[in-house]
């Protein structure tokens, strides 16, 4: 097999980057860097400062006040609507009610045992799973803790 030909040097008459063009590009780069240095603090200033995320523990209610597979207990957690239900076996489950499709508020339908979203007919099961409609993800579940009969939520699952 013959050796591949070595790349030949460009012919001398091929137009090269002129000194003037090179310096112009260099000036452009310097200008862009200067502008970026100017803009960076402005972007930093305008960008919201992240607040430390703390998920408070919040009392929701008494377990004995709920019936398994019965009505939901609605409450607000971190300024967003949420609900707590008991599964048929008595396990407490809590979810943020915002539909994962476009954020409308779903409602618990006792008869059908579903969370129903009125905007685009999204349907979630009692464990938050998507059963029908456009929602791409299950409902966001909240961690439920029981202390005796009292139920608390603390953060998301």
């Amino acid at each position, binding site marked *: 097999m013959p050796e591949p030909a070595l790349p030949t040097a460009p012919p001398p008459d091929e137009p090269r980057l002129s000194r003037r063009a090179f310096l112009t590009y260099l000036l452009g780069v310097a200008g862009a860097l200067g502008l970026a240095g100017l803009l960076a*603090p402005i972007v930093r200033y305008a960008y919201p400062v992240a607040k430390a995320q703390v998920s408070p523990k919040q009392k929701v209610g008494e377990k004995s006040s709920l019936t398994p597979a019965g009505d939901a207990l609605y409450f607000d957690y971190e300024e967003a609507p949420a609900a707590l239900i008991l599964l048929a076996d008595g396990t407490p489950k809590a979810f943020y009610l915002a539909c994962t499709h476009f954020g409308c508020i779903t409602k618990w339908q006792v008869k059908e045992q579903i969370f129903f979203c009125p905007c685009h007919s999204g349907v979630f099961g009692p464990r938050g799973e998507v059963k029908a409609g456009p929602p791409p993800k299950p409902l966001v579940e909240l961690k439920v803790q029981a202390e005796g009969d009292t139920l608390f939520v603390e953060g998301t699952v």
Partner: protein
Amino acid sequence: MGLATRLFAYFDRRYRLREPLEYQLNKRIPAHLNWTNCFGGVTFVCFFVQAFTGILLAFYYKPSLPEAYTSVLNIMEEVPFGTFVRGLHAWTANAMILMATLHMLKVFFISAYRPPREFTWVSGVTLFFVTVFFGFSGYLLPMNQLSYWATTVGTEIAGAFPVVGRYVQLFLLGGGKISGETLTRFYALHVLVLPATIIILLAAHFSMIRRQGISEPL
């Protein structure tokens, strides 16, 4: 052809930009000019800085009695570069009044206000008053002790004017004393009314200078 040139050519073909642009960019100026003729331009640069930093401050400032002072504290202590932006706004406010004063003195002492430039002078003096009122209204916004008492004194001075004084004072304060009403009023003046006024006046001021050229010495 570079990108900028081609982009310009694209719009020039459609809107014939070259001629008016050349007219604006190539101006004959008298040979006697020196750095003391720059005061007006520097004042305008100050205004530009004020507009820009003012918009940035408005991102975080909350014009209500319970929140004004704490939101300024937030800018100073939490927001990245907040101290710098507020400092720039406060210092440039002083610089703007200083530069406008120097500009006015220069124009006065070379008698550049004489005909046919009377209305450039009138618009300039009005601009100076608007600038001072910018400073006065902005002074209240942090709602600290200095703001409160400076506004008290300022509105009392307005109130001392014969006959109409007390109505002016009532209008400025939005009531009998400094309150949340005063704060929202001053904020509206500072960020809405005065900027609109100053832009119109600046446009008039600059057009007259452009039209008549810079005054020749006597």
